[in-house]
């Protein structure tokens, strides 16, 4: 079951380090992400988007405040697609996906079947036995996406997932992500996407949060009311893109 994410009066302060002064990135930050929606966070570099994502992922702790889900945090299935795929180089593609299933699916046959289905969905069935170093950057990120969906996540976090790829590959992977998101055979997670690409935000998200300032604050919330599946060349996306750029520049 996907889960609402309630960010409640979060403070995040980083201590002074290496000559850098103490830095308050988030101050009394409040936000609510509805169950099953995909929210994109956009804003200038260093404004605190990735910090917020790390807090939701549990990789860091807030200085004050809390992040609440519908269920206790330990029972939430959480997945992340990182900017770099973060695959285990010594495991084959299918083992890289299978390893995250070890906690969820004790039956090895069903585990293998899940991995096979996902590899077909990300169009890599012939690379099941390959080691990651022998794949292209785009293929590696496909594996990372398959791994993220393998656990049937309640919450899916996407940390600039396509920013390290060339535009053509990134475009293909956005389409792939959309098709996985719309796949009716699995429950739809609650998603948070951090990106610098406004068109990507408009293409994938239900709502785009424009962030800025120090400590960070919400400058604008823009609803993307475009039917899915979306096409990356849809003129309406460019209209959203313009609004996002204006909101950023106003900030």
């Amino acid at each position: 079951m996907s889960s609402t994410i309630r960010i409640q009066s979060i403070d995040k302060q980083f201590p002074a380090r290496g000559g850098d002064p103490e830095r308050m990135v988030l101050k009394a930050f409040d936000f609510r992400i509805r169950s099953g929606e995909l929210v994109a966070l956009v804003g200038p570099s260093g404004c605190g988007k990735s910090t917020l994502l790390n807090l939701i992922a549990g990789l860091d702790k807030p200085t004050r405040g809390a992040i609440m889900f519908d269920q206790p945090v330990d029972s939430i299935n959480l997945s992340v697609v990182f900017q770099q795929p973060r695959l285990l180089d010594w495991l084959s593609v299918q083992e890289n996906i299978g390893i995250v299933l070890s906690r969820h699916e004790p039956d090895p046959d069903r585990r293998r079947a899940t991995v096979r289905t996902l590899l077909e969905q990300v169009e890599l069935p012939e690379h099941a036995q390959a080691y990651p170093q022998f794949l292209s950057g785009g293929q590696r990120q496909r594996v990372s996406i398959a791994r993220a969906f393998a656990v049937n996540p309640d919450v899916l976090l996407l940390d600039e997932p396509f920013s390290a790829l060339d535009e053509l590959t990134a475009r293909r992977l956005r389409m792939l992500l959309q098709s996985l998101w719309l796949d009716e055979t699995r429950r739809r997670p609650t998603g948070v996407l951090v990106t610098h690409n406004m068109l990507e935000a408009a293409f994938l998200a239900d709502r785009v949060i424009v962030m800025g300032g120090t400590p960070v604050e919400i400058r604008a919330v823009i609803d993307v009311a475009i039917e899915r599946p979306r096409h990356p060349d849809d003129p309406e996306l460019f209209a959203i893109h313009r609004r996002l750029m204006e909101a950023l520049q106003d900030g």
Partner: protein
Amino acid sequence: MNVKNLTLDSARPVTAATAVPIIRRLRGTWRRMAPQALFFAVLMAAWEIMAIQADSPLVPGSAAIAREFAGITLSGFAPAEIGITFVRMSLGFLLALAVALPIGILTAVSRFAERFFEPGIILGLTVPGLVWALLCVIWFGVSLASPVVAVALGVLPALIISVNQGVRSLAHELVEMQRVFRLPTHIVLRRIWLPVLYSFIISGCRIGFSIAWKVIVLVEIFGMSDGVGYQLNAQFSTQNVEGVIAWTLSFWAAMLLVEHGVFQPLERHANRWKKGGQA
């Protein structure tokens, strides 16, 4: 005519397909072996010149050494003694590995443990193998414990450092990945830590084995009644230089076998996932 052509056409590709890889493999083997063969030729030539120039029983010629080497090897005496030495080395080595794994991991993940064990590791690196050999013979006398403990003490610091570096090489990003997906501890240990440590342990074993050899010879000289070290000492007592060199050569040959038969295949296996790792 047609039948003849068909036979020829079908036979030709089979011959070409089998001959080309054989020639290619022979060329590859020659390219690999040629520098090593050249090294042996240069070494033997230099030794022979030195022996002729010295004209002394203290510098025997290659033929005398070869005779001695063939004598101890073909009779099965050297393989048996080398076997004894290898068993002692391996036991000491396994003991060192069992201790090095937890300490190496601890020193990599805990600053306190790193500081706690640092003086001990430096002590281990600086104490000569001779000291461990003497102390162990004094403490344990003529028993299996002497060579095993001395080898373990001699090898331990190098192995701890290898394990420590292996754990540290595990990227922070991968640690975050395993935390996000909440991988069970046994999976993390078996599928992440162990493979990462594998290649570091193999390189540590290589260095450790060469250290172990230097320690075991000393223990066998001082406190054992068999093994390569004991035989070296026996040859030294009778001033049999051919014997000393022949025993050294036989152990060198055994180490080459271990290198090519054990360490290199293990290293290839550990690096099988790397681009060019099989090369």
